[in-house]
């Protein structure tokens, strides 16, 4: 990998959350994260619950401002605010997604499509294409609050592709899904990566998923990177046979 094909660079990110007014308590969510993700890479962020994975994705997406450090997207520095142009090149899909409850799948996709400037024929063609791609035709006119978890997740992935993102952030995309739906979603992710050459940053709890999809992995623990590299390197580092064992080894104090 070359240095100049880095599309996401995270430099020294620190983020603490303050709670309580009179007796403030600080939770250290991220404690100095450095990462470089290359163009076209499918990068995995793993770690136990509360390790800081989702916070990291939100920082990269510009939804949380770090206390220290910066995020570079395609060479553009963001230390608090992304330009509109940068935001047009990225998108994100979260596990257990929420969208406006009264909107049907098609209406929700129309709404978010318009937020990216899609209009008229372009919008309807894009929405139709994504409904087909994510096998949502049967649910296109169903309200979001009436969908099953798996269908909500597929809607969320469809929504995250509305702007043809160059960088796609997937936060636990198969969380809470049955094995069949999970397999289908993994298939879609693979396809997006191989056919559309999208740079994907994915967080997951499922080691099988990480093993199957990711080329490189960062293992986060207590807001710090505990291990970084290819799957093989991490397995070697932890003397593990598979990622499941590596996870347990890295997560155990």
């Amino acid at each position, binding site marked *: 990998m070359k240095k100049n094909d880095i599309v996401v660079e995270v430099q020294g990110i620190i983020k603490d959350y303050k709670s309580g007014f009179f007796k403030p308590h600080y939770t250290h969510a991220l404690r100095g994260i450095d990462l470089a993700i290359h163009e076209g890479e499918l990068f995995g962020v793993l770690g136990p619950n509360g390790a800081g994975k989702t916070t990291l994705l939100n920082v990269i997406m510009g939804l949380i401002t770090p206390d220290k450090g910066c995020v570079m997207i395609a060479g553009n520095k963001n230390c608090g605010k992304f330009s509109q142009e940068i935001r047009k090149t990225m998108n994100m899909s979260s596990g257990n997604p929420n969208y406006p409850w*009264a909107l049907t799948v098609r*209406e929700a996709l129309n*709404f978010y499509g318009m937020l*990216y400037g899609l209009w008229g024929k372009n919008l309807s063609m894009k929405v139709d294409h994504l409904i087909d791609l994510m096998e949502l035709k049967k649910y296109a006119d169903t309200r979001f609050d009436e969908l099953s978890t798996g269908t909500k997740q597929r809607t969320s992935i469809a929504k995250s592709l509305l702007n043809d993102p160059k960088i796609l952030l997937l936060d636990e995309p198969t969380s809470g899904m049955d094995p069949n739906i999970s397999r289908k979603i993994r298939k879609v992710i693979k396809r997006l990566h191989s056919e559309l050459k999208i740079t994907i940053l994915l967080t997951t709890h499922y080691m099988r998923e990480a093993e199957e999809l990711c080329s490189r992995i960062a293992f986060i623990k207590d807001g710090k990177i505990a291990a970084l590299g290819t799957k093989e390197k991490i397995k070697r580092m932890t003397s593990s046979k598979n990622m499941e064992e590596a996870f347990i080894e890295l997560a155990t104090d």
Partner: protein
Amino acid sequence: MNSQLIRIYAFAYRNYIFAVRNFFTFAEMLFWPIIGILSIGLMGGFLSLTGNMKSFLLTGAIMAGVFQTSQLDVAYGFLYDVWSKSVKQTFIAPVRNIDYILGSWIIGTLRGIITFFMLAGLAAIFFKFQLPSTLALWISLAGVYLTAMISGMTVIFFIFMFGQRIDIIAWMLSALMMMLCGIYYPVTYLPAFIGKIAQFIPLTYFLEYFRTGYGFTLNFSHPLIKGFGLSAIYIGILLLLIELAFLKAKKTGMLIRLSE
């Protein structure tokens, strides 16, 4: 079409869908305002008020219905996302605060116009209420819609600062403003220090102006200049405050908490 116009349209489209699919939005536009106008009209009859005094009260009831309907829509532009826990999804996109404020205000204005004509029609049928000249009517309505935008924007600012627990302010703030700006009585009737506060609310001047159409004398000079001037100043200040509150919400994690 310009991408900012598309985004504004997107929020108007979403507010429209919520408005036609939810009973509570229908009740806000029709049920409560109709209850208000009929109660006030009947009370006027019971108290044997003169035509002018009855018009004064009915004007207040009509404008209260219009103001409440419109200002709620502006607040809803943001609250629909808060209640759906989809705030994060909206701000992942290249959205500016002005986009959802304007988009929802457009629907608020349309719903306010429907409320206005329905209430004025009912008041005319049951209580012989007549509308003032067309120009005075539209100027006053424009003022009420601008004040509704200010009220809705204030709600958005507070939610960014303090989270969903404060969403009740969407109903409280408008009621407070209506009380202060003399919705059912002249502001001169208020205690002096409250009357001073009323002078900082644009709605006070638009109500005053609207009532001149029924022969009431003005308590303030240049009500339109003051009303529109204050509105412009407040909208400018609130846009800045909402932007600052948004940046603070990203810093404190409130933006994400509003999506959980």
